[in-house]
């Protein structure tokens, strides 16, 4: 909550700074619609934030100002100087209150009523002295707000450092320097890598941080409106530039509030319609090609376009003639017009039509898009699409005529060797078509599109553009890297072929391909509707028959494969990330310790495959990812069962071991948390809760505290008494007698062994 209030204070302060010019200009020209809208948006945003931050004074003030301004927007009120003064007084008071909250002092609220009365048109009354203000005080900020420019400079310096490190390493290697120098260089490399991760992370944030405030906001908003809403959040670990997150915070909040207010029907109506009583709102983030998509979908009433059009005609914002010429999609788009609302009643929450126009303005300012997908009666999906630029993306480089180009990893469906026997190239008229398994798709030579000579297609990448998939031929495949993408100069972007530029570790600039742009440039035409379900069925049928395999070179230099479906990501954890914990190698990924298989020498520089089965994560060490290939589902049996090899596949004529991921998880994966429960009997000293609980939780148990062993319905651990069930811990190191089955409380291995046994016996020992 503190964070949210700090955010709110910083945001309000910034907007006020930005608004000060507008306010002055509006004072001079009160009929200026654009300025009026800007001030209106400000008070509306403040009101919205106050609603869920529980700041009733600010909420009342901003609500009053909003009412007044709305009346002016609707033309039912003339903005005379008296009114302007009243609005300015409230805006000033909002500023004062915000500062007061920040500094944790209280501000006399006796005058608030006067301000509200003034805006409602009444003459100011002499202030009465009332008790002290009851706004809650706040501690000073614990975080620091930095300008993004400073972060950019930090990032720039960091990249310089990496380039220097690389050059130094090259020279040291060439000169054959003494081992001490190499050791120092190694240390430098480790530090630089860690520092780079940290600096990179200062700019990147999991979108989780944006989503975390939503459940509370949704609950409060729904409660206020007497509705019941279930909020489902997915894709919280998509990473996004901090700046982007700030920019979409407000739009997202507006969209969700709108969904609850306008979309979700009241519970009674929902029951009548045969829908679940609880409205459902799904917020989902994902990286799609060169874009990050945030989808907010509800199962409410959708946009009632007819009602929307009628209302606009009533308000004189649309003529019946215009309306008649509009398509359904165009009618839906009307909700983005300023001053439009479909809500029947103005509520505390929304319904003033501000929102969707602000949403679109804010998202478009960062080069994004807002699109709608509505079905009357079935719900509305709002898709916010923001560009990848400024984000760090995982990319694979392809090479044409000696020059490397990056393609975002997410845009690549698969990469196959051009001489793969599964491929068929056809010429249909003037077009090149690639047939890969059951799919036919256009084939585009990257060299042809770019106008540079190509060696003739050594590899083919199947890429998915927004409109459809196609095959892109290049000479060879390069590295897999994490890249910071920046927008290129307009002269470069105007070619329509590039999504941006990047400076990889090699120090040679690289262009990032825009796969959609290349499709357009190559004249490919996709017709989504025409493709229909038939192709989907074909693809699905094909997928049943064949399996995608990621080929990699193991740490022992041997080529192996693993089923692609479980591979979450390929990561380079860097030097020193591998450690031996409890006799088994582990690697730290995203701040979590993950069991690591396939590692030889833990001091080697490795990459890891991150495998995820939906519950637990396991890493497999590799030297390098090589290719993604399709294999026949039938494998030759391995020479030996139970050693982690599923079978032998024939790839490019060579036998390749396919790893048994099932075995891998069985060996390495932690048992699902749900299966491991444990109750601790609280003791008077708090030892169980303070010392033991974190230890057991970190081992993957779900721990509950109980007052006595009888209250537990699973494995139970108690201290000092002789329980009839479960594990008893004793305070003395030596057992009390020959029959004492208790475990010394600092005997970790003994404790876990007893717990394991208990879990295996179904809870009661």
């Amino acid at each position, binding site marked *: 909550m503190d964070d949210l209030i700090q955010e709110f204070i910083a945001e309000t302060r910034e907007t006020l700074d930005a608004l000060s010019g507008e306010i002055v200009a509006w004072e001079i020209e009160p009929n200026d619609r654009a300025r009026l809208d800007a001030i209106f948006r400000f008070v509306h945003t403040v009101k919205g934030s106050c609603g869920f931050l529980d700041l009733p004074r600010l909420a009342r003030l901003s609500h009053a100002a909003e009412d007044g301004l709305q009346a002016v927007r609707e033309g039912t009120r003339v903005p005379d100087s008296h009114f302007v003064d009243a609005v300015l007084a409230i805006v000033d008071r909002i500023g004062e209150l915000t500062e007061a909250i920040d500094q944790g002092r209280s501000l006399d609220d006796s005058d608030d009523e006067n301000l509200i009365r003034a805006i409602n048109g009444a003459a100011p009354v002499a202030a009465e002295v009332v008790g002290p203000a009851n706004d809650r005080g706040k501690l000073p900020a614990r975080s620091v707000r930095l300008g993004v420019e400073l972060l950019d400079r930090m990032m720039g310096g960091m990249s310089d450092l990496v*380039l220097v490190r690389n050059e130094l390493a090259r020279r040291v290697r060439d000169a054959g320097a003494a081992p001490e120098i190499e050791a120092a260089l190694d240390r430098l490399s480790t530090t630089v890598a860690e520092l780079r991760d940290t600096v990179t992370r200062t700019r990147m944030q999991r979108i989780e941080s944006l989503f975390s405030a939503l459940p509370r906001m949704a609950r409060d908003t729904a409660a206020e409106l007497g509705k019941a809403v279930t909020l489902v959040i997915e894709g919280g670990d998509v990473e996004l530039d901090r700046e982007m997150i700030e920019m979409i915070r407000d739009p997202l909040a507006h969209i969700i509030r709108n969904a609850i207010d306008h979309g979700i029907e009241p519970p009674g109506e929902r029951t009548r319609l045969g829908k679940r009583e609880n409205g459902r709102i799904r917020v989902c983030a994902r990286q799609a090609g060169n874009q990050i998509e945030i989808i907010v979908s509800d199962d409410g009433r959708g946009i009632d376009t007819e009602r929307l059009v009628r209302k606009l005609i009533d308000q004189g914002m649309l003529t019946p003639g215009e309306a008649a010429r509009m398509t359904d999609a165009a009618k839906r788009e009307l909700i983005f017009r300023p001053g439009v609302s479909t809500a029947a009643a103005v509520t505390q929450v929304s319904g003033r039509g501000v929102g969707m126009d602000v949403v679109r303005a804010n998202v478009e300012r960062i080069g994004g898009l807002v699109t709608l997908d509505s079905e009357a009666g079935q719900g509305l999906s709002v898709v916010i699409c923001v560009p990848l630029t400024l984000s760090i993306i995982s990319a694979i480089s392809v090479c044409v005529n000696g020059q490397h180009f990056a393609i975002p990893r997410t845009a690549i469906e698969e990469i196959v060797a051009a001489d793969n026997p599964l491929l068929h190239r056809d010429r249909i008229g003037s077009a090149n078509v690639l047939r890969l398994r059951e799919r036919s798709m256009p084939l585009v030579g990257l060299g042809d599109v770019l*106008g540079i000579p190509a060696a003739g297609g050594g590899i083919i990448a199947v890429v998915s553009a927004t409109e459809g998939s196609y095959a892109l031929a290049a000479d060879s495949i390069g590295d897999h890297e994490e890249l910071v993408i920046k927008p*290129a*100069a307009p*002269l470069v972007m105007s*070619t329509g*072929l590039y999504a941006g530029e990047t400076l990889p570790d090699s*120090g040679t600039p690289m262009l990032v391909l825009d796969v959609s742009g290349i499709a357009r440039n190559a004249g490919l035409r996709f017709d989504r509707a025409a493709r229909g379900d038939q192709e989907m069925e074909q693809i699905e049928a094909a997928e049943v028959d064949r399996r995608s395999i990621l080929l990699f070179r193991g740490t022992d230099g041997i080529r192996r494969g693993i089923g692609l479906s479980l591979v979450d990501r390929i990561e380079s954890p860097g030097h020193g990330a591998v450690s031996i914990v409890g006799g088994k190698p582990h690697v730290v990924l995203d701040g979590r310790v993950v069991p690591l298989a396939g590692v030889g020498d833990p001091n080697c520089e490795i990459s890891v495959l991150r495998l995820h089965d939906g519950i637990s994560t396991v890493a497999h060490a590799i030297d390098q990812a090589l290719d993604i290939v399709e294999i026949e589902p039938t494998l030759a049996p391995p020479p030996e069962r139970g050693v982690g090899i599923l079978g032998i596949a024939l790839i490019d004529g060579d036998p390749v071991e396919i790893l048994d991921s099932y075995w891998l998880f069985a060996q390495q994966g932690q048992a699902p948390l749900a299966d491991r429960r444990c109750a601790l009997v609280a003791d008077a000293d708090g030892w169980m809760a303070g010392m033991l609980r974190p230890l057991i939780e970190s081992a993957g148990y779900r721990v509950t505290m109980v007052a006595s062993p009888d209250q537990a319905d699973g494995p139970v651990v108690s201290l000092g008494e002789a329980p009839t069930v479960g594990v008893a811990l004793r305070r003395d190191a030596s057992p009390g007698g020959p029959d004492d089955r208790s475990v010394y409380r600092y005997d970790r291995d003994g404790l876990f062994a007893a717990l394991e046994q208990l879990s295996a016996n179904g809870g009661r020992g």
Partner: protein
Amino acid sequence: MEELYLITAIAGRAVAMPSERVDSVVDLGSIVPVPAAPRHVCGLAALRSRVVTVIDAAIALGATGQAETGRAVVVTVGGHLYALLVDRLDDVAPFSVAPLPDGVRLDPAWARAARGVIDRDGEAVLVIDPAALIDSAPIVSSVESPRTIAA
């Protein structure tokens, strides 16, 4: 009023740029080409940790000659860094700028970039706006488009 000007040579001719428009003067390393970009875009180069777009100033001014020195003037336009390849760098000195002499007619490419003349020891040197060299796509097409040559 006198201001500082950077005197360089582009397409064999002396040219002056207001030094306040110039970020730095560098020798570029390797240049990565940008396929399908306008002809005066040589490519991308790394300048410390940033990527600069390299512009062949001679081509932007309608000349055919390619500067091969790797010596470049770095300017910022619209938040992007550009390196303008030039033949050589001569001098930085204060001058006062005068309008073009009456009746002088320049090629469209030069005319678009021209901002006046300065007198350097009796030699008239054209003052150009570096930004005009970057956004010169229409001029290139009006003089000689690479695509029409290829066709």
